[in-house]
């Protein structure tokens, strides 16, 4: 081999190393097919994946310009973990994400496309929905699609069998739990192996004790976790623990929902899709719920935790620089915001409810109807702890803290001090 050949070989070798990055850099330059909309999806579970496929097919069918959607589905958790890098490198034009703080965080970083103009056309969304779709700068970035409430779920038949009544207040809740213990049931299902399900209980306890406004400022880092009001929340929680399933840190939400299905527990605080997905189809009509009981009469049951999922435009997407592609992407959002688009989706996934007031309620299951009423009657809608506060705070501080509380609930002071110290260092980093 000649020297030149060798050098050429070396250059090719170096090229091979650099090649993958070059390839990704020019995989999809602007000026591509402006009628094909690329959409990043985190709906990797079978039921929602199928339902979304139906909805997108319906969009393609009604599109007079022959627009198509190319869905790029990523595993739900990986999508979440990579969202930062995804939005910064070469994202799809449209992507699925969550409302609230988790959206605002990226809006603030300039990674989302302002769609305030679309919001002027949108119809059928309540002011609360608009607020959850709005960034800190007052512009809208998010098109809501569906949501689902968190509540205390139980089996209708079990409640009838023992003659239980849905409790209104915490005292009634505890009394019911005591009765269930007498009836040889584990009263309250409890799970936190995944780290997030118990956050829902905290959110409700805090909103019922201290009100939505305090909850919101606590999540925004404006209140101290060492405040007596927060400690009260943990004290109330400790009062409930004797009636909760033991070993929550070793139990997934699937297992908790299954113990509800197997009639081992009396009730459980979860989101609507959770029991929905774990019950066999013929037992689903037996699922029922009541709103989380009142603790402080001043706040009653006025707040409902109802995380909203929806669609956004990624600012860094190269295609969006092309006017025609942008028009296509906006056309898709406009369609997704219609009641009909939601109806198509919900036909395939009855574990959620539509956000648009014009959606067709006639096909709702009784459970969906009740959920819609619950949310409609709410004065305030919270998202969920990991959507209402900073993602780094929720995942690196609150998950370990709540798990620690569950396994050793007696040192509330130490726990709150721990959280507050870490909160200060995280919220100070900006």
């Amino acid at each position: 081999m000649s020297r030149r050949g060798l050098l050429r070989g070396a250059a090719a070798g170096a090229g091979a190393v650099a090649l993958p990055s070059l390839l990704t850099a020019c995989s999809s330059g602007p000026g591509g097919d402006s009628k094909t909309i690329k959409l990043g999806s985190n709906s990797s579970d079978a039921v929602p994946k199928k339902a979304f496929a139906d909805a997108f097919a319906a969009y393609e069918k009604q599109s007079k310009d022959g627009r198509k959607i190319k869905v790029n589905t990523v595993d739900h958790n990986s999508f979440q973990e990579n969202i930062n890098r995804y939005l910064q490198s070469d994202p799809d034009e449209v992507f699925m994400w969550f409302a609230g703080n988790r959206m605002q965080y990226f809006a603030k970083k300039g990674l989302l496309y302002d769609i305030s103009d679309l919001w002027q056309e949108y119809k059928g969304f309540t002011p609360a929905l608009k607020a959850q779709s709005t960034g800190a700068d007052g512009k809208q970035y998010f098109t809501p699609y569906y949501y689902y409430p968190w509540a205390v779920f139980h089996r209708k038949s079990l409640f009838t069998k023992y003659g239980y009544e849905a409790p209104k207040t915490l005292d009634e809740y505890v009394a019911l739990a005591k009765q269930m213990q007498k009836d040889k049931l584990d009263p309250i299902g409890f799970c936190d192996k995944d780290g997030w399900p118990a956050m829902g209980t905290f959110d409700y306890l805090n909103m019922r004790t201290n009100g939505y406004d305090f909850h919101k400022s606590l999540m925004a880092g404006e209140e101290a976790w060492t405040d007596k009001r927060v400690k009260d929340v943990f004290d109330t929680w400790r009062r409930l623990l004797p009636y909760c399933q033991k070993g929550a840190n070793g139990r997934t939400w699937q297992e908790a929902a299954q113990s509800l299905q197997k009639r081992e527990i009396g009730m459980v605080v979860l989101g609507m899709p959770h029991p929905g997905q774990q019950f066999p189809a013929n037992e689903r009509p037996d699922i029922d719920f009541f709103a989380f009981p009142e603790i402080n009469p001043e706040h009653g049951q006025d707040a409902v935790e109802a995380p909203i999922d929806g669609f956004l435009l990624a600012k860094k997407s190269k295609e969006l620089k092309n006017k025609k592609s942008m028009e296509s992407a906006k056309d898709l959002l406009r369609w997704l915001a219609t009641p009909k688009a939601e109806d198509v989706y919900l036909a395939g996934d009855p574990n959620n409810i539509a956000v648009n007031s014009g959606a067709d309620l006639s096909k709702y299951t009784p459970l969906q109807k009740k959920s819609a009423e619950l949310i409609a009657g709410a004065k305030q809608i919270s998202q969920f702890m990991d959507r209402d506060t900073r993602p780094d705070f929720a995942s690196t501080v609150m998950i370990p803290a709540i798990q620690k509380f569950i396994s050793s609930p007696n040192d509330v002071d130490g726990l709150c001090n721990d959280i507050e110290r870490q909160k200060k260092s995280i919220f100070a980093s900006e």
Partner: protein
Amino acid sequence: MALNTARRSGRRGRRRFTRRDLVVLGVLLGIPVLLDVAIVWGPTLASVVLSFTSWDGIGSIKWVGTQNYANLFTNYPPFWPAVRHNLLWLAFLGLVAVPFGLLLAVLIDRGVRFSRFYQSTLYMPVVLSLAVVGFIAQLIFSRDQGVLNAVLGNTKNPTDWLGDPNLNIWMILLAAAWRHTGYVMILYLAGLKAVDPSLKEAASIDGASEAQTFFRIVFPTLRPVNVIVGVITVIESLRAFDIVYAVNHGRNGLEVLSVLVTDNIIGEASRIGFGSAIAVVLLAVSMGFVVTYLVQEIRGEKSR
């Protein structure tokens, strides 16, 4: 043509390398060195630098000095448990799994009945990734639906093997050791096969007992295998990640350093500066072992 150049250069006397040789050497050494710098040392140094900043992966990089480290040592509850768990992992694999693997290897090497069957059964877990071992562990240890509680029959008050923070690390170590033992056993088996039988014969002629033969004759000849096993054990314990991540994302009693790094850097959190500081700690611990090992090896090389 190539040969001619070589001969001519040889005649020229002192110069040992032609330009051509130098180019070849330069390219062949240069590419790996470049790759090493770009892929290994670059990111390593970048981590060290980033560990003194606060950066969320999007905005500007702000210099914060040693604040991340101060935070880490005093104000991050999972940190010290993670350090303890990594060391415990090392001790458990080194002091339990390795000797047990050696024992199994010796037994099988002596040709107990069905030794081939044992050999393959014990080796089986090695082909599984630790993440898969984690899933299997959950099938066995899960509180409500696990095999172990079903077998023990304590349905009244079942033990929460994976949820109790005082207990779960031991269960995970057992699962990790299940795999590691097979790995170690195979390495020792290969080593034992290579021991010259005449050494053992000589020992038995001299009247050595079996134990004496093993500890004085066989074991010293296994030195190269011991070194490999030691290195593998250290690597396995420091990079422990997949199994705890599969079980509960390394929380609530299963903290290890690598998970804390991922939680802070890869996750939605993106506390890249803080996560880098944890990575630097992990690097420092690993360097301790690497340097000790290299020093030992180089000394051994010299004395040989």
